[in-house]
């Protein structure tokens, strides 16, 4: 099919042109800052983490704030999961026999909700409930409603239909069918999604402090602005450590679920 090949080569050419254009178009002025002296200074600073910051009992130290960050993620994931339940039920195609317009509209809304970055929600909630970790948790929760709503309702729709038919055949009502054959199939998968998003939310929670929503975000931004490299490195190390541990534990739990 010569036409197809022509189109493909055309696209490839277009890609190469776009690529070259992007590179040429960039503003390379920042390369000046990559001077050897600067980099060396940064590098040595990073290699000497400020261990005094780890724990000093003031409540503003690393341990305390990392703990707060994880709790923000936990609280946010919890409310997100609970609040998403009505949305999930309303957007599953299988719960709406003839009126397919509802789930479609719902799905659209949920897509919108989950496309807004958590940071924006955090800014919103800081205005509503004031700065602090609660705002961050609410932001994560609202975004999770969008994500879970889409993911779990899709799972509900592609569940194995055979036991559902069988339960209908014994004379069960729609609610009974849902409880006895759709729900048991979806619950483990939903729980796995929730745990997965908890992991993701811990990462997000580390950045929400940037807009005043609590956690370790604010200290690390300050440290970066002050070019306090030892402090930056100790915070990064803590973040890496916590994320790795939580990922590990959560993967184990998810394996056992499925």
């Amino acid at each position, binding site marked *: 099919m010569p036409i197809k090949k022509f189109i*493909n080569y055309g696209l490839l050419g277009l890609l190469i042109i776009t690529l070259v254009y992007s590179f040429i178009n960039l503003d390379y002025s*920042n390369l000046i800052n990559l001077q050897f002296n600067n*980099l060396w200074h940064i590098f040595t600073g990073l290699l000497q983490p400020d261990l005094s910051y780890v724990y000093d009992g003031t409540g503003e130290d690393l341990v305390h704030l990392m703990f707060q960050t994880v709790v923000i993620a936990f609280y946010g994931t919890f409310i997100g999961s609970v609040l998403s339940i009505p949305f999930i039920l309303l957007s599953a195609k299988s719960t709406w026999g003839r009126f397919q317009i509802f789930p479609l509209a719902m799905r659209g809304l949920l897509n919108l909700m989950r496309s807004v*970055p958590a940071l924006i929600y955090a800014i919103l909630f800081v205005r509503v409930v004031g700065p602090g970790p*609660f705002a961050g948790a609410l932001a994560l929760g609202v975004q999770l409603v969008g994500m879970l709503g889409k993911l779990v309702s899709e799972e509900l729709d592609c569940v194995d239909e055979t036991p559902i038919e069988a339960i209908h055949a014994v004379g069960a009502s729609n609610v009974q069918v849902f409880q006895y054959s759709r729900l048991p199939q979806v619950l483990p998968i939903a729980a796995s999604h929730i745990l997965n998003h908890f992991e993701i939310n811990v990462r997000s929670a580390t950045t929400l402090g940037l807009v005043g929503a609590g956690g370790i975000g604010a200290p690390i931004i300050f440290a970066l602005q002050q070019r306090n490299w030892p402090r930056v490195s100790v915070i990064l190390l803590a973040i890496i450590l916590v994320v790795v541990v939580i990922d590990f534990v959560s993967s184990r739990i998810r394996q056992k679920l499925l």
Partner: protein
Amino acid sequence: MKRKDTIHDHLFKQIGSSLLLILLFLAAGQVINADWTEVVENRKQAAFFLEGFLQPEWSYIDRLLEPMIETISMSISGTFLGVITAVPAAFLGTNLVTRNPVITFIFRTFFSLIRTIPNLLLAALFVAIIGIGELTGVLTIAVFTFGMVSQLIFASIETIDIGPLEADNSIGATRFQIAVNAVWPQVAHSVYAYALYSFEVNIRASAVLGYVGAGGIGVMLNTALSFMQFGRVSLIILIILFLVFLTSLISEYIRREVI
């Protein structure tokens, strides 16, 4: 009849874990000073936001054209760099190409470490090192993509057919030759797919990256937010969503027709 003979044999366990979860939730609420009454009291604020959001300031769009192109260029360059470096990196991280288990271990640990840092922090880090601007954005995207794609390629390599490798090995090919000749053809398809996927992800992420100064449309977002011009904010978000939508269409097409 006894409870354990019914279908509720795990009832206590189920109730117990639910109660535990609720207790943890309440405790967490204490830790973060959750005050739901504030949400109710200040709902007017939220309404104020929503009002602003629901009326995008369309006229602002001509000021956004250049940042839009900036964002797309950044993502293209960054994704490209990230994928190009990820391929050899992934190869180095597998046991098939590098026989030395110490090297593979070091590489793989290094990659996972990069992946655990949220990309906003990466951006902030690079801004602090290099300064504000598009180049920082490109670098952030490249590093982030590198982390993500190297893992994906690595997983792909693990699942390939060993046959061609053994064949090459038996005729005395060097490890590099084996990599190019036997491994690459099998994973090439996936690599292109990953590149497209990362591009989509990066367009979405560029919104936030700009917030810390890494260039692109996110910078305008930052400005609009600090001046509480929510009409502009919602326009910017809509544009980002539109770009994401566009890229997903294009990548769908490419995936189906070309790859």
